[in-house]
């Protein structure tokens, strides 16, 4: 299964050690973006190179890997990344979230709660939550150093003044451990509460921007808000057409060209599990 022409998990051991040192620093300072010597990976920047490098640095032969993109195991990018690790490590893979020891994800956190023996690796396109407000890195670094985050609240204030509510729906900024303003990666804000006090270790890799950050297990993660405009997650009027769930994040599917729509779980593993349970009960 494993292609022996490559080193285990592709990266050479020195590069992995460099990344693991950055990870240790990241875990020691929750939410702080650690610069690291990101390597050119055989996948394009913006397609998960940060997550892949983090996964490659922590994966061992006994790990069980799950890779998801938009919550699904079978989208082409998830398949491609999973194949890459199967080819370079030969580890076991799974689609069942609770069975995985290592989950690499793009844009979702699984609906099934994570547990202590798991690591979740997020692919991050833009690690700097302030970048859209202040593009100069030298300036944002100073703002993090001095914990000057008024600007972020100005943005949220403007949303409320203009729309009556905070109009950020994904990559919704969080405060980690009461200190660092952090980008949760483009997960929907629906997933933000799952980050708070999560028993799993959460690692974030941004390859193109060359940053690593982390949220250790059981760390406080708060979504920014105002007292009189508290943080809220999305809710749907519909239930999943396949498993009937009303608790999960739903994708909208266009069924015909006459405006037909239906909703189904974005987390395919969660949905399949519920369908199987229903079938067994019937």
């Amino acid at each position, binding site marked *: 299964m494993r292609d022996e022409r490559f080193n285990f998990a592709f990266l050479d051991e020195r590069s992995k050690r460099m990344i693991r040192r950055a990870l240790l620093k990241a875990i020691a300072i929750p939410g702080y973006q650690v610069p690291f010597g990101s390597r050119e990976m055989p996948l394009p920047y913006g397609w998960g190179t940060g997550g892949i490098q983090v996964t490659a640095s922590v994966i061992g032969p006994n790990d069980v890997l799950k890779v998801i993109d938009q919550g699904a195991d079978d989208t082409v990018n998830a398949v491609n990344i999973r194949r890459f690790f199967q080819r370079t490590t030969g580890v076991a893979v799974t689609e069942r979230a609770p069975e995985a020891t290592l989950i690499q994800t793009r844009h979702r956190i699984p609906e099934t709660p994570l547990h202590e023996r798991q690591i979740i690796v997020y692919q991050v396109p833009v690690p700097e939550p302030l970048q859209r407000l202040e593009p100069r890195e030298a300036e944002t670094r100073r703002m993090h150093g001095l914990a*000057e985050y*008024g600007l972020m609240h*100005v943005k949220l*204030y403007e949303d409320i*003044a*203009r729309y009556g509510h905070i109009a950020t729906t994904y990559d919704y900024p969080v405060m980690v451990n009461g200190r660092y303003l952090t980008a949760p990666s483009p997960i929907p804000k629906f997933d933000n509460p799952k980050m708070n006090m999560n028993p799993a270790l959460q690692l974030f890799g941004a390859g193109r921007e060359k940053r690593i950050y982390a949220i250790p297990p059981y760390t406080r993660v708060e979504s920014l808000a105002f*007292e*009189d405009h508290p943080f809220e997650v999305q809710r749907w009027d519909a239930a999943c057409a396949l498993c009937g769930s009303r608790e999960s994040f739903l994708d909208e599917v266009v069924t015909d060209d006459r405006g037909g729509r239906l909703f189904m779980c974005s987390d395919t593993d969660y949905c399949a599990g519920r369908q199987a349970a229903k079938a067994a009960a019937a």
Partner: protein
Amino acid sequence: MSVILEARGLAKRFGERPAIEDVSFELHAGEVLAVVGESGSGKTTLLNCVSGRLRPDAGTVRFMTRHEGLKELYADLSEAERRFLARTDWGYVHQRPEEGLRMNVSAGANVGERLMALGERHYGRIRTAATDWLSRVEMDPERIDDSPRTFSGGMRQRLQIARNLVTDPRLVFMDEPTSGLDVSVQARLLDLLRSLTRALGLAAIVVTHDLAVARLLAQRMLVMKGGRIVEQGLTDQVLDDPQHPYTQLLVSSVLQP
């Protein structure tokens, strides 16, 4: 009255050229001090040095903090502490309001920013404070959600003042606060500044090349030439009975009221 700011022996040079040399003065709580002089006399460099924005080459600037006595800005305070002071106990009014405002967010957000930076997390209270301050600077509170881009120069300057005063600072630095404006607008703004500084008991350092501004706002004034203070004293005294030849020249070159 107690000293709120004290400068001793300040000097700053850019390359070979000294911008200010051996400048010393005191500012008392609630007092407005004008710094006058022609352009290139070192006024703005002095303002930057005493407001923590530019480290002088020599000399000290001490500020009377609320709870910890006199602190030297550059030796006793970290950059974080200076920046904290700058957005709480101090204000800084730029000549061009565009430099002191965030032009891409609403008037309300401009006024509310300092409150949010200090940890205010109640939208309603921020709105109330912003509305209140817009009226206090004689702006229409209805315009709270408008962009400063839609405001006239005078309105922008009022907004900048409101944005600075919302945290109840004790000391405000102003760099030519009225010089970009039409004469009639200038007069109304000066009136507003005078009543605000008196009502709030604000100490202020106002840099201006306009003696009329000094006369209207300041109890005391410094006259600068070539980076040095050539004369200082009570405003009326300096203007009515100037001692230094340069001051005499300045005063005589303006039409007397």
